[in-house]
């Protein structure tokens, strides 16, 4: 009786030490003596840093309570953050009016989600709402003084809310201004070009701190008495102008990377300057510089905390204010860790979204 093998026998699994966790570790962590040594050293280093950190932040930490006496265990005192959480979010905004801030935040989140989730239709209208109507709604809700809402002065604004207001206004206003400046700098009209170059170089040539100081310390002295610009408004204008100069240079990089043929093709189609920019050049140029634009946004978001030097209570400043209370002196570390975490969440989300956007808009093969 002959045995005829109809099909090849099934292939054996690879040796155990080349697959799974073991295999991965052999291949990536312990491939050579040098690598093994590096792995061990780094592992010991990380663990010896991590253990005290986890010990401090979680195991020994105090979570519930109302006063500093509830923090006895020697670890992190999250009670401090807990007690001040509302303040960190809303600043000194009157408690009875805080729903207005929350409402603005909810509208903002819904609008952003509607813009970002591809399946939702009517992007154009949502975009128009976000750009033109949302700022008006948000302004009246936050400032009040109309429609039966009590007036809340901007010097009571603070915390994460103020940080977001500054960042969003800066981002939304600096982008169009930056596009115009970038186009102006490449314009063939001598006056427009020189004005744009002068603007960009002057604003890029001074530190943001100087701009803020000028806006809060010098400007009031030049204005006639009684003409009192809101301090927040002054800071917002300063930050926007400052960021638009940086934005312009990022966008100019994109414009310069577009081959000349694209410009010529657009004119050959009979498009005028604005049409060719809007329909042909800018869509390509902006797409190309998304990482640069988002980079500028992230740095703007972090720069917002500089407003603490002109006495505005952004997230960082309100945390500092909270541990200046004699009852809570000495909880600076917990406060700073919390602020850093919030900043990280926002900046990291921005960077992830930009990567997603790059991927989505990629048209090369």
């Amino acid at each position, binding site marked *: 009786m002959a045995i005829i093998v109809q099909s090849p026998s099934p292939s054996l699994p690879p040796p155990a030490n080349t697959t799974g966790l073991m295999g991965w570790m052999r291949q990536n962590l312990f491939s050579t003596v040098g690598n093994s040594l590096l792995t061990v050293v780094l592992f010991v280093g990380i663990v010896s840093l991590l253990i005290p950190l986890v010990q401090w932040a979680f195991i020994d930490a105090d979570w519930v309570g109302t006063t500093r006496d509830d923090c006895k265990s020697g670890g992190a005192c999250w009670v401090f953050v807990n007690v001040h959480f509302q303040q960190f979010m809303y*600043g000194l*905004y009157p408690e009875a009016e805080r729903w207005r801030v929350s409402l603005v935040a909810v509208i903002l989140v819904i609008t952003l989600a509607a813009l970002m989730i591809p399946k939702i239709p009517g992007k154009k209208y949502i975009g128009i709402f976000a750009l033109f109507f949302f700022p008006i709604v948000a302004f009246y809700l936050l400032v009040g003084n109309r429609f039966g809402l009590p007036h809340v002065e901007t010097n009571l604004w603070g915390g994460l809310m103020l940080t977001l207001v500054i960042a969003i206004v800066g981002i939304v206003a600096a982008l169009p201004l930056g596009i115009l400046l970038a186009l102006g700098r490449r314009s063939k009209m001598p006056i427009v070009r020189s004005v744009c170059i002068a603007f960009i170089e002057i604003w890029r040539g001074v530190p943001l701190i100087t701009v803020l100081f000028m806006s809060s310390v010098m400007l009031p*002295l030049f204005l006639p008495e009684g003409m009192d610009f809101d301090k927040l408004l002054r800071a917002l204008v300063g930050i926007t102008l400052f960021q638009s100069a940086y934005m312009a240079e990022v966008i100019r990089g994109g414009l310069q990377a577009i081959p000349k043929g694209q410009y010529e093709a657009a004119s050959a189609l009979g498009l005028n300057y604005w049409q060719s920019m809007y329909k042909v050049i800018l869509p390509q140029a902006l797409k190309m510089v998304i990482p640069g634009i988002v980079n500028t946004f992230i740095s703007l978001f972090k720069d917002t905390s500089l407003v603490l030097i002109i006495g505005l209570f952004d997230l960082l400043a309100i945390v500092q204010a909270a541990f200046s209370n004699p009852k809570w002196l000495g909880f600076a570390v917990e406060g700073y860790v919390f602020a850093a975490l919030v900043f990280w969440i926002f900046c990291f989300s921005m960077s992830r979204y930009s990567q997603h956007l790059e991927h989505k808009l990629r048209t090369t093969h």
Partner: protein
Amino acid sequence: MKSAKTLAVAGLLSATFAMPAAHAGATLDAVKAKGFVQCGVSTPFPGFANTNEKGEWSGLDVDVCRAVAAAVFGDATKVKYTPLTAKERFTALQSGEIDMLSRNSTWTLTRDSGMGMNFAGVNYYDGQGFMVTKKLGVDSAKKLDGASVCIQAGTTTELNLADYFRANNMKYEPITFEKSDETVKAFEAGRCDVLTSDQSQLYSLRILMSDPESAVVLPEVISKEPLGPVVRNGDDDWFKIVRWSLYAMIEAEDLGLDSTNIDEKIKGESPDIKRFAGAAEGDDKNLPLDKKWSYNVVKQVGNYSESFERNVGQGSPLKIARGLNALWKNGGLQYSPPFR
């Protein structure tokens, strides 16, 4: 013709850009019209101006703002606070953004004479002091010969320290740090015997130590830092209101009046108290305020001692001793001209 034109232009310019120096009483009218006192305070400074968990301002400096509001409106809550950094504080006052500044500012000749401002009084006598560990067993700065001293770099503290040790023919070894946190860490770790800074600062640094009780602040003060409220030049009425609101708190302590007993005491026979509280007949104090303004200050804000103990003294975690800020009759410097 040409010169007339130039003059007119110059006049217009100076009218537009002149410092806000208006007729007397303008600030009071403006304050009454808007219904609150706009008061410049510190970006939080523990015990002097800080916010609590609910975001309400309190502190020794804040109480001066509240006293002025109590005097003007009979309501100490009618204050709006503008937190100011050290650099912008005087500009904010000069430009009219705030009505008064109560932000631990040192009263000096140049500030009083050259910057268009008036210091209305002193609500805290500060000065550079020394903190030592109890272990060291020193009770006077005069015994610090050969000590190592922790200081913050780049402050006048450094110069005062050098002067003091040279004047007393003592040696010391300075150890400088960039930040106050680092300074206190080094002091706690035993890298220096002495920590020097403004006394008000020393007490809040002491809280940062894991065992605050192990350190003491020495009684000597080696520099003069009188801190007080400031107003703009050129409005004497407002200046006097701020000055006497502060004096009302000090005088109340002198007379033994506080927020709890004042109602009872003005029913008594003491003419001083009756006169102080505006309870006597025909008792017009010539300030353009309600007759009971000083009563309102004491009733709503408290006397100086209450304010001190509540914000920086024994009733607060800072536990600053009265020291120079005790009343004149207790060996301190706080003194009010008579209310008569």
